[in-house]
């Protein structure tokens, strides 16, 4: 069996220098994945102008994007169907999914999720929001030290939709953006939601 410890063919882990360089290589490889890939992703432009396009949220739900709407295709549909848009600096996150409960329950679930985030507080009571097609939803305003916004939920024909609008600054949404979003969300259409 010869020298069972076989020191004749050293491995790089046998010396401090080898372990040091090997450890640096592991560190470098991990950082290349954790930081390098996101950096590369951010360097490649993926912004698409969607102004005036009808945005499909899936399950037969769609709405017309307002003026100034862009989407980063690299960030889209990360969590099983969430669509994220940028409307003149405001972030609009919209999701449609099969849903069997009421709009109040859906609003309650989003309330809970927002309240769990540090600094976010819900302001006032829920109000009603109606689309042009007459589908009634619920709207609730929230504030945090760094942003302000609201969410609207609809439950119609077995599909639940939630749209969370948040400003990127603490001053909230400007008037023009607010109005454009109001008009755009009123175009929400529910088609073929039941098979």
């Amino acid at each position: 069996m010869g020298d069972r410890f076989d020191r004749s063919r050293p491995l790089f882990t046998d010396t401090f220098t080898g372990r040091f360089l090997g450890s640096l290589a592991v560190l470098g490889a991990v950082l290349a994945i954790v930081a390098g890939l996101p950096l590369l992703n951010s360097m490649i432009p993926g912004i698409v102008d969607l102004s005036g396009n009808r945005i499909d949220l899936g399950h037969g739900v769609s709405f017309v994007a307002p003026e100034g709407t862009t989407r980063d295709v690299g960030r889209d549909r990360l969590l099983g169907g969430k669509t994220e848009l940028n409307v003149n600096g405001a972030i609009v996150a919209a999701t449609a999914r099969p849903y069997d409960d009421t709009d109040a329950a859906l609003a309650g679930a989003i309330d809970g999720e927002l309240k769990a985030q540090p600094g976010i507080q819900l302001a006032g009571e829920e109000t009603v929001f109606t689309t042009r097609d007459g589908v009634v939803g619920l709207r609730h305003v929230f504030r945090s030290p760094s942003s302000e916004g609201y969410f609207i939920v609809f439950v119609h024909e077995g599909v639940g939709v939630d749209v969370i609008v948040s400003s990127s600054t603490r001053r909230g949404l400007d008037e023009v953006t607010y109005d454009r979003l109001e008009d755009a969300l009123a175009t929400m259409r529910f088609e073929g939601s039941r098979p």
Partner: protein
Amino acid sequence: MTGEHYVRPTPPGSRRWFDVRNPALWVFAILALPALWVLGKAVRNCFITYPLASTVAAVGFTLFTVPFVIVLRRLDYLEREPPGLVALAFTWGGVVAYMGAVYGGRAAHGLLAKLVSPEFAGTWSAAIGPPIVEEILKALGVVLVVLLAREQVNSTVDGFVYGAFIGLGFQVVEDFGYAVTATAWDRGGDQVGPVVSTFIVRGFLSGLWSHTVFTALAGGAIAYATVNRGLPMRRRVGVVAGAVGVAILAHALWNSPLLRDGFGFGGIGIVAALFIKGLPVFLLVWYLFSLAYRTEASFYRDQLKQYDDTPLVHPEELDALLSYRERESARRLAQAPKGRRGARAARSVRRLQHLQTRLAVLSSRYPEAPEWVRSTVEKPPTRQWLAEERKRLGNVLRARESTAPDRRDLLHRNTVRKCVVDILAARAQLEHLGHPVAAPTPQKSSPMIPYALGLAGLGVLIPGVGVFAIVTALLATRGNLPSNGLAIAAMALGTLTTVGWGIAFFLTQSGAG
């Protein structure tokens, strides 16, 4: 897989693996601490938003790890890995690799969406980005273990074990994340239902052929390349690249949309597709592990063989080291006289086997061990003397570790001598119980095992047949017969298919399709 250096014992006088002077430990700390911070914040958020669902998920998936840990520690029978190093491997998987995969996976998705198309990324990114990113990150954990404690990676089996623990850590944390995300996605508030669904799908139906198995494969290959220094570099690198490649491909197949519609047969078809996509890689890894285990066991059996003319080990007992089945067979034979006497004999056999394994490992580490063993057998010291000597030498070594090689040799000799004395004591007890030799039963297996395997295979295709496979396998291992590995496989497959078909039936009945 036979050859000269497929097992590389820990050299005498090796440092402990936890050494703050080792740069690999610093790299682990640099990566693990921030990752733990970010993960901790995310988990805390889960518990604040969905306290009930998060608690159930945490408890459920913690319990899920228990059978894995038991099986992995049992597979690591011959030369046990240090628990601290195993815990570090688990942490790498659950913290560093998982958090790295979150960032890397998102970026990979974005790159695919930009470079190919958003539609392509929506369909295929799960089968391209995560398998590459996650398998590489987890394999890097095994490399770090080698850098931290190369002396502890003695055989290919060790790599399988460290890889499996890294994969298990990743799997459990990821499953927890999926369970809470499912609750959030359900938008039904803090409910347990989505957690249970996640547990059934990711725990029962796909838990066996997931990250644990993928990373075990990569880990085994890295250990193979580390231990087999005599082989050409090209072959060693090729083995590692091939194994990581197979792990990535198996992961990609699992994540791909292929067969996701279950051949159009709804829930039942989906369950069948899960088996088709997952079972082959599990069987491949099991086969390769068995090869590696046999190589390691043969090496340690050869170490013991030199003592087969002493009361330490009888020639009939040598084969018991080769497999769990043989060891269990010997225990069952000792247990044949029912009652307390049989139970005591079985316990003594278990202890004897454990001590013999330890002696084999010690003999492989210390070239002078055979001499120490023979002198001890000829004139055994008392246990009390050994204990006092061990304590004395231990204190001396702790005080002046680096300048006391002769004392360290004394401690090693003392360790070997204590092992010999313990074996002689266990042997004396067995003789007292009328069972002097802990040999396995000569009847190796039941003729019913092929039938059990056949029924288990049919159980994949036909609902309900799995139950007959379980019953046949149980009958095949009754009495003093050893629980043959094939019988265990038939039982496991039978259970899995029965549970799988049950879930598919439940899903179909409840209208989930």
